[in-house]
């Protein structure tokens, strides 16, 4: 399993692996929104939690179809399915690898982009924490969506449509936590719910995703 994780990370880092894609997209959103909305600091500060969370979510979405589609194309997925690792473990490891190359860098860079959007200092910590707790759910749910659409050529559109509704709770609680943090209200409740979504999806969805892959390999 460690070998699979290393391989996926190595593939993402090498040329054409798409490591910087989500990060660049996130950066673009944070740079472009102030230009589009206008320079009023109060407006920017108010919409910053939502914008940053939507940006993180879309940046995650961007690289989802690579999770299994590339392995399906070159036959690796068939070989992994006959390997000693259970397919559920393959899904979990690949979701983890996806998080390590998209969710984690997004989380780490987010305070910097928070400054660009005039997010208050009180909100910065909550933003970091909420993204840290919430982005793993985005990767796991995304892996499930990618597993459902793995047999389809250019399944990207269907994948987005399938996954977006599943992302909504994460988005709502994530943005809500930051927004409450900015206002100085109690942000713990949405954070706990966010952590609950992550824990629940990480526990259940690898099984669902593995089942979907088995159906798609027929």
């Amino acid at each position: 399993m460690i070998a699979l994780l290393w391989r996926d990370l190595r593939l993402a880092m090498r040329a054409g692996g798409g490591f910087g894609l989500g990060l660049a997209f996130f950066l673009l959103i944070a740079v472009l929104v102030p230009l589009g909305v206008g320079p009023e600091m109060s407006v920017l500060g108010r919409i910053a939690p939502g914008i940053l969370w939507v940006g993180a979510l879309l940046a995650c979405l961007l690289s989802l179809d690579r999770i299994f589609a590339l392995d399906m194309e070159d036959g690796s997925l068939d070989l992994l399915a006959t390997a000693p690792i259970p397919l559920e473990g393959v899904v979990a490891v690949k979701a983890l690898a996806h998080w390590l190359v998209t969710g984690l860098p997004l989380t780490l860079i987010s305070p910097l982009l928070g400054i660009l959007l005039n997010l208050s200092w009180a909100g910065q910590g909550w933003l970091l924490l909420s993204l840290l707790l919430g982005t793993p759910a985005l990767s796991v749910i995304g892996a499930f969506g990618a597993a459902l659409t793995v047999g389809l050529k250019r399944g990207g559109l269907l994948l987005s449509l399938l996954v977006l509704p599943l992302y909504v709770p994460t988005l709502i609680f994530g943005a809500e936590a930051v927004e409450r943090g900015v206002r100085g209200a109690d942000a713990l409740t949405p954070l706990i719910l966010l952590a609950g979504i992550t824990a629940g999806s990480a526990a259940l969805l690898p099984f669902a995703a593995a089942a979907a892959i088995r159906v798609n390999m027929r």
Partner: protein
Amino acid sequence: MSDHAPLAVRDLACMRGGVAVLERVSFALAPGQALILRGPNGIGKTTLLRTIAGLQPPLAGEVSHPAESLAYAGHADGLKGVLTVAENLGFWAAIHGLGDIEPALQAMNLVPLRDRAAMHLSAGQKRRLGLARLLVTGRPIWLLDEPTVSLDTASVQLFAAVVRGHLVKGGSTIIATHIDLGLPEARVLDLAPFKAAQPLTGAFSGEGGFL
């Protein structure tokens, strides 16, 4: 060597795209034996191999073999272009819990290419790397689907020698191929008589349409 067959296929029927292609396929494969599948295009050689490998469920019948004894090699080699030959092979060795890739590199004549990225290999070299993967799985039963595609004559001989070495060590193999591999000891199974009588309709036909 035990008289108990490690791989037994009984009354197997398999389907492709919701249509039954083969039925009543039965055979057993003992250690040290090779079985060559023959039959016209579309008869279901690939489907049969995938069903035996457990990649798709059988329509009827059963396949029995010891757990984790099968190594499947399909039309695609499962290579990553940006990884080198040694990295590709090392990954599969690690997945199967084996560390040493040198014997496999030597057996398939890949030592001079070990640090070359897989995307810069020729089709035949990629195939050799894909077949070298079988040696690092440590699995006794090889399921090979057209293993000699894009191999030159010398490489085919090299591969036949590898297969013979595998058989001598008590391994066994099922090979779907059209060419003469130079394995006179191998049994040949012609799949044409097992062609499914009529296309399946009804309960299973909707399965292919799922998603």
